[in-house]
């Protein structure tokens, strides 16, 4: 509630109190407050001149930059000036300043960019209030600022790491290249930042005009575990779209088959929200693999839950936190898989990215065991949605963008790939032939 409204209501209540208690004091208090409000209201008519002072509008993303507003108060009484933040791309730190009548004061605005790019701050708004902070008016300065924010060195390094992890994730998915490098040459590929210089193939690099690295065959030291999500939420299909569950089963089959070919044996762990469902160890042949995943990946009824699994009831209710250990199904139960995975092994998890908080924790736990985690996430949006209305498109777009951000976040920690029905089609068809 605004201060002015609060004081007006208080005065009305004071009148009531005066009448009920047959006391003149509260009534007089009420009249005094109202008179004060009225005088203040009639006096409040801000008049000012403004000038924007900026030196340079090119900044690095981690840098805090300052914009100074030079304001001259032409009113007959002091006014409090404050900037109203109007651009979400920046974190605003605004200092309010009281400027005496006929005086000029400076108001600094400290801006820190949340992301990189070129931003236009349009119509900076100024909140002007009286010295008591009771009445206020918002004015638009009418000046726009075009600010360029460049990436910092740290973010470039992080971005490269993310990009490298994305590439690595894709490579892992297609050929399951995990394990220790041997001296036996495998194939040539594009140079990734962080590759050793001695592995650059200079002849091929000169021919192609870009840096080419040698890739060597790798041997796996520890076990390979494939963690397959069989929770009802993950295996739901959009009505009318391409069947995601079928694709997930083909993808799982494909990945495991590759691993069997390259590394002889694999452990398959099926899990859902209640924890581990089934475990099949030491799978070595195609037949045993078929038997193992048969009837495990069947479509479930309902529409996929596309937003984050942790939101809503799971996160907002503090009561749920207390109940978590006693519940049969909770998102964190998949963390119990960590105990089954041996140290110095590799884990490939096939699940939805909406579990990203648990995935981050899972990755952390596995890192403690010197194990690696690779995430394969079928993107539910790419499997088609039958009914698309104009209202739903922006919502789906925002969810998709959020999903992309989560993938980037995860890629900073472990290789993560988001897959669609078109991914791996060639390999899968080739394998079935």
């Amino acid at each position, binding site marked *: 509630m605004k201060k002015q409204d609060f004081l007006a209501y208080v005065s009305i209540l004071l009148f009531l109190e005066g009448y009920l208690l047959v006391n003149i*004091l*509260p*009534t007089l208090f009420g009249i005094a*407050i109202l008179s004060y409000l009225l005088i203040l209201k009639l006096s409040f008519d801000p008049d000012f001149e403004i000038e924007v002072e900026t030196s340079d509008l090119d900044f690095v993303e981690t840098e805090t930059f300052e914009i100074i507003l030079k304001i001259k108060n032409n009113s007959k*009484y002091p006014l409090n000036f404050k900037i109203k933040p109007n651009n979400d791309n920046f974190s605003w730190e605004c200092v309010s300043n009281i400027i005496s009548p006929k005086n000029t004061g400076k108001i600094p605005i400290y801006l820190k960019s949340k992301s990189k790019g070129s931003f236009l701050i349009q119509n900076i708004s100024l909140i002007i209030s009286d010295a*008591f902070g009771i009445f206020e008016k918002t004015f638009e300065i009418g000046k726009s600022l075009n600010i360029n924010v460049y990436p910092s060195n740290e973010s470039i390094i992080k971005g490269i790491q993310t990009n490298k992890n994305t590439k690595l994730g894709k490579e892992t998915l297609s050929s399951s290249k995990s394990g220790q490098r041997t001296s036996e040459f495998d194939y040539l590929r594009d140079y990734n930042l962080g590759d050793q210089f001695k592995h650059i193939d200079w002849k091929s690099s000169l021919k192609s005009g870009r840096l080419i690295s040698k890739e060597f065959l790798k041997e796996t030291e520890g076990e390979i575990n494939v963690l397959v999500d069989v929770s009802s939420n993950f295996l739901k299909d959009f009505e009318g779209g391409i069947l995601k569950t079928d694709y997930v089963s083909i993808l799982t089959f494909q990945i495991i088959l590759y691993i069997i070919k390259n590394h002889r044996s694999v452990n398959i762990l099926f899990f859902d929200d209640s924890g581990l469902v089934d475990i099949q160890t030491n799978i070595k042949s195609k037949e045993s693999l078929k038997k193992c995943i048969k009837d495990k990946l069947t479509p479930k009824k309902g529409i996929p839950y596309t937003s984050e699994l942790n939101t809503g009831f799971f996160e907002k209710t503090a009561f749920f936190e207390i109940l978590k250990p006693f519940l049969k199904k909770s998102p964190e139960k998949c963390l119990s898989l960590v105990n089954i995975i041996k140290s110095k092994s590799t884990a490939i998890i096939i699940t939805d990215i909406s579990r990203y908080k648990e995935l981050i924790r899972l990755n952390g736990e596995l890192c403690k065991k010197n194990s690696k985690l690779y995430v394969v996430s079928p993107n539910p949006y790419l499997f088609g949605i039958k009914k698309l209305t104009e209202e739903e498109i922006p919502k789906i777009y925002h969810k998709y963008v959020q999903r992309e951000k989560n993938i980037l976040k995860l890629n900073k920690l472990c290789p993560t790939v988001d897959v669609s029905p078109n991914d791996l089609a060639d390999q899968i068809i080739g394998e079935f032939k």
Partner: protein
Amino acid sequence: MKKATITSLIAAIVGGIYLETFFPTILIIFYLLSNRFKSSFLYLFSAYLFIFGYFFNPMDFSTTLIIFLIIIPNLLVLFDLIIETKYEFNKIDVFVILCLIFGIFYSEIYIFGIVLLLIKRLNKFLNKKIIMVIIPLITSLLIGIRYTDILTQNLIYRILVLTGLGIILYSIYSFLNENREIK
């Protein structure tokens, strides 16, 4: 604790003593905790006003005396604590404090001091032309009420007339606020 605002506090306490109540001494707590409870100050102060009205009933005193000894000092305290700038403490404040203290013996000196303080406070922050119109208007209205027969007959009539005045003020205020919203 802001040094310059002690004047209003002294005025409120002395005014209270003159009307045989020590209730305004509670305001010292407001001053001491003004920085800590800045956000909830208005709530606490309104609670103070309600409680003050509940425990203290100045039936034996005239309306004018109540206005000058209780209402104006308490309102000045409200000004001091919600204002975002600091008042300058100068010689006039010393003179006002002396007037207030001597006011315990002679109420006229106290009234002179409190009027001086009110002018000093409002002078800097409000539009002078409006003060010149509104304050004499309200004062003459109160004096008019003071000398009418209705008021001397019964306290409840007095309260009703004053409430009527308050409602007129509230209507004007609401009208002005509505105008602002349309713009």
